[in-house]
């Protein structure tokens, strides 16, 4: 019962909040003539003005992201020489810097380092937290551009204006509110170095701390997920109580949910947005049910020992209750957040499949902006097949879906599958991966599979037993993250650009409706078949094999 209450409370309240926030986001990204002074200010700051076509928009985005990458790389590479380093963190290896920079630039936040061990406060804030803002803003900007294209605007907007709107008008105010709430709930926010404690038993304990609250707020809201501390939001100072846990979970899905409403508003079809929201929510609820359900099974290894057979508590915190861990695991992977509230490696085998499922689909709310963009790819495919089934040349909101659109959409879906399966194959069959797994057997396979899944979904969570701070892992996942970030942004924008150029056709009772349950069903089936089936064999060899190989 308590599980049901918690799920209902977190999802229900966040979903309710997402509606007005989505409306606000649409207004913020598309002010029209409503806020001329703000728009002028953004133009003055950037020196950029005027609408861009999809190619110009993409170029601006890539240049800005290149600047993001370069600056973060520089700060991390020089952190030992820079200020705000009270605990004297030293130099990082080049491959780790590459991986970390790629990870935070791409909104992934895969961490092959441990924050309290390796990062100075300056690195945490000016490099990593800064990217947590602007990478999330990049995603929101890209979604706004896509929506404008679909809405049939003359241009896609201006990236550098959009990224400022998303940073200053959306992420900043929401992060301020959440950070203050987290401060009030008891998260640390200090620039003092680690505290030295002399414990009751007389041992010395060094307690790492820092400007955590500010970092965690944007980490959660921006679907970033990179923790201030190594074990992320399982760390008591990153997530102090049941209530901070609930707030942080809400923060994971708030903006991804709002993005769907924002999309619906910008394209002028809020009902279509609601249908997409419904489909995403369905997947989310199903995986939550699976996760919470499977995690009720006791820790399998304790069979035969005089230990009470309650739920599996390995890798979980007592203050979050039984549901907090598995619920977080689904939320953080259904979105491309990647923070963790329980150690995913220690989840029961089938529970561990649920986060992977979320990342394979990568669109059941998904990352800030990009989740909805990924869903757009499935929509293109669904509309194409469904359109034929109603006996018309497929159309999406009056745009004809033809060879070019199908080609780009299927290419993006192919890339996701190829990066996950190809990477896993390469590392599973070679010492690069096989020698780095912590757990033997299918669980070790799951660790490798999870890592590439997480990188390709720009998620960032991990089966952390994997010894992944190696040159092959740092390079491979770094490259995957970069490709997996920009391919699924550029290709959909190219599709929208191609749609913009076509004459729009009128809708009638004969055209495929995108605002009803039938379309929702079609979309759901498409997601299952095109998204999940691809990964079925891998899933069988990982979590399913582990589950079914357990002694009964």
């Amino acid at each position, binding site marked *: 019962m308590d599980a049901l209450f918690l799920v209902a409370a977190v999802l229900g309240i966040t979903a309710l909040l997402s509606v007005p926030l989505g409306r606000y986001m649409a207004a913020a990204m598309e002010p029209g003539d409503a806020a001329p002074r703000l728009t002028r200010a953004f133009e003055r700051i950037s020196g950029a003005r005027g609408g861009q076509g999809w190619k110009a928009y993409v170029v601006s985005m890539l240049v800005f992201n290149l600047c993001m990458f370069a600056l973060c790389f520089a700060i991390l590479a020089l952190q030992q020489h820079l200020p705000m380093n009270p605990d004297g963190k030293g130099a990082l290896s080049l491959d780790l810097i590459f991986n970390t920079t790629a990870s935070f630039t791409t909104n992934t936040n895969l961490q092959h380092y441990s924050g309290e061990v390796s990062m100075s406060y300056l690195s945490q804030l000016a490099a990593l937290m800064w990217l947590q803002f602007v990478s999330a803003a990049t995603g929101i900007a890209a979604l706004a551009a896509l929506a404008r294209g679909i809405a049939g605007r003359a241009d896609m907007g201006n990236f550098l204006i959009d990224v400022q709107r998303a940073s200053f008008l959306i992420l900043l105010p929401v992060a301020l509110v959440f950070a203050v709430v987290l401060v009030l709930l008891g998260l640390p926010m200090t620039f003092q170095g680690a505290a030295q404690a002399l414990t009751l038993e007389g041992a010395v304990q060094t307690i790492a701390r820092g400007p955590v609250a500010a970092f965690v707020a944007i980490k959660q809201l921006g679907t970033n997920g990179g923790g201030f501390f190594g074990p992320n939001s399982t760390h008591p100072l990153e997530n102090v109580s049941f209530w901070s846990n609930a707030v942080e979970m809400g923060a994971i899905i708030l903006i991804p949910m709002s993005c769907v409403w924002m999309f619906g508003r910008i394209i002028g079809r809020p009902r279509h947005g609601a249908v997409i929201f419904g489909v995403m929510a369905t997947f989310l609820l199903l995986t939550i049910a699976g996760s919470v359900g499977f995690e009720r099974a006791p820790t399998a290894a304790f069979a035969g020992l005089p230990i009470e057979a309650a739920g599996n508590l390995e890798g979980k915190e007592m203050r979050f209750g039984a549901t907090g861990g598995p619920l977080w695991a689904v939320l953080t992977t259904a979105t491309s957040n990647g923070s963790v509230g329980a150690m995913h490696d220690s989840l029961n085998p089938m529970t561990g499949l649920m986060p992977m499922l979320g990342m394979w689909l990568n669109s059941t709310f998904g990352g800030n902006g990009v989740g909805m963009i990924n869903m757009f790819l499935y929509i293109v495919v669904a509309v*194409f*097949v*469904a*359109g*034929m*089934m*109603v*006996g*018309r*040349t497929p159309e999406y909101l*009056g745009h004809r879906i*033809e*060879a070019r*659109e*199908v*080609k780009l959409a*299927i*290419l993006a*879906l*192919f890339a996701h*599958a*190829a990066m996950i*399966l*190809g990477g*896993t*194959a*390469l590392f*599973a*069959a070679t010492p690069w991966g096989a020698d780095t797994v912590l757990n033997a*057997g*299918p669980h*070790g*396979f799951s660790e490798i599979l999870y890592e590439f899944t997480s990188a390709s979904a720009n998620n960032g969570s991990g089966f952390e037993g994997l010894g992944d701070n190696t040159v092959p892992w740092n390079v491979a996942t770094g490259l995957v993250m970069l490709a997996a970030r920009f391919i699924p942004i550029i290709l959909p924008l190219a599709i929208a650009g191609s749609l913009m150029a076509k004459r729009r*056709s*009128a809708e*009638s*009772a*004969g*055209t*495929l*409706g995108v605002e*009803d349950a*039938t*379309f929702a*069903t*079609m979309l759901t*089936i498409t997601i299952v*078949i095109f998204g999940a*089936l*691809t990964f*079925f*064999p*891998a899933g*069988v*060899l990982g979590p*399913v*094999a582990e589950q*079914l*190989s*357990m002694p009964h």
Partner: protein
Amino acid sequence: MERRVATSLFTTDLAAAAVRGALAKLDPRVLWRNPVMFATGVVAAFATILFVRALVTGAGDAGFQGQLVFWLWLTVLFGNFAEALAEGRGKAQAAALRSTKAELTGVRLTGDTRETVAASALAAGDVVMVETGALIPADGEVIEGVASVNEAAITGESAPVIREAGGDRSAVTAGTRVISDWIKVRVTVEPGQGFLDRMIALVEGSSRAKTPNEIALTILLTGLTLIFLVVIATLPAFAAYAGGSIAVPVLVALFVALIPTTISALLSAIGIAGMDRLVRFNVLAKSGRAVEAAGDIDVLLLDKTGTITLGDRQASEFVALPGIAQSDLIEAALLASLADETPEGRSIVALAREEGFRTTTTAGAAVVAFTAQTRVSGIDTGDRSIRKGAVDALLKLHDHDPQAVTALRRITDRIAREGGTPLAVADGIRLLGAVHLKDIVKSGVRERFAELRRMGIRTVMITGDNPLTAAAIAAEAGVDDFLAEATPEDKLALIRKEQQGGRLVAMCGDGTNDAPALAQADVGVAMNTGTQAAREAGNMVDLDNNPTKLIEIVGLGKQLLMTRGALTTFSISNDVAKYFAILPAIFVVLYPGLDTLNVMRLASPESAILSAVIFNALIIPLLVPLALRGVAYRPQPAGRQLLRNLGIYGVGGIVSPFVGIKLIDLAVSGLGLA
């Protein structure tokens, strides 16, 4: 009227030819056109090599591999067979047409010389003389003479039609026969590009270019194939991690089972069959694209006469002016119509007879025939000069009493409002009244239009009538809109306006002045009796000259796309069951616990793999009839349509292979094949 040949799907001849065709299509250069089947062919060849090696070295399970190879090749052949069968049905028709064409010769007139030349030597611009009994050698236009022509070779309709110089009945088609009189024809097409040639090419499927939608679908299927290629190619590495391996023939089997072979095998058959259905419906589409466009139509422009109403108006009422005896009006109308052989005239006579008027003779009377200039007709008998005609035309003859004119206007307006056409009758300067000529709306059209509306298609009636009459008929027939007093320019403007609004427009027409609109419309159906210009401008030609067919053409277009979509859904949905058949079979050696996933409880891993591959192959011929016939189509809104097809082909596609594979497994294990 209609020549619908009940071709059965499989005749022995067709099937035999299709089998030969299936083998011929194994040529990689041909197979390449269909990437999914090409991939199947490549891996089948690869599996064959492995099988031969296994035979030679004695390693591996050659018996199992041999069966696998057999079914893989059969999958490819079934696909080729489906295509060959669809083409074969067209080829049979084409052969008949071609035999007509081979014997064509023409008498060319050059200055004063006449020479008999083969049809293939006739170029555009040549003039030929065609006399009674001769076949017209090339498409062209009559420039002199009148003849009746039997066009049965093209239309299947034996009643001869009149072809004459000038006007809308001047076009003649190669292969049709002049059965009386003679005509001089100016050839309008170059050799090999005539109507007959096009028809042959069309029914044969030889010039069939892929439509945009087919190309897009092929890309989707190829993309899926690539995705599954990655899925399969990574499995050996996954197995290696688990400390085992998967035999290559098994991987090949899984690959072929997963890629969308079913829809790919049937794809071109669906397209050819769609065109073929249209041909058998006596409509020739100039491209597959036009057929698909028909399914997308949003607005139908329908000519009132002949499509919505019966071609002939019927007199339904005599309305006398105040102060004029009803009998005077009826008698005058009768007299004026006795010599009028038009259907309208005859209907006036018939109505007058019903009213009891028996006058039959018009001795000594002078008949005044209808001319385009006066637009009135009548009779002069004794001192009487009786005229009937359109109100304005009649009033122009004399200066009538203004009061009577006003009274007449009142009557004619009422008739127009009721959807009728008023025909004024006057005796010299004395206005008598009007005859109410009624348009008879065809039975059933109202329901058809309601059906179309549910499908989201708007109907617009095009008529030369005045707005009042048009509105009344529009209301009676249940069309959504009408264009009254329509000129060809109005029609063109309306099409452009609708297209600007993002709607696709279909229309039919026959006259030369229809040509611009036919060309502008997304689907322009020219009547076969129409002018050469109209036939060139449209993208379909209706051999039966039946404008109502436009509605069916839309249905055929939709059915073509739906068949494609439904079989795509079915094909991809099948993968769920195939996974559950093959994956446990492959992986159980790695992790015995995975036997739990063998939900169908298939007898052995070999049997499971073989059964999935056999199902995958057999489903192709099983679905050939559906591909050729098209999925059941009924006019209904898109949402209902989708739900229905999703239910049948989506859910059916998930469930049926579970049943099918289990049954095949029982057979395979029962026969001891694996």
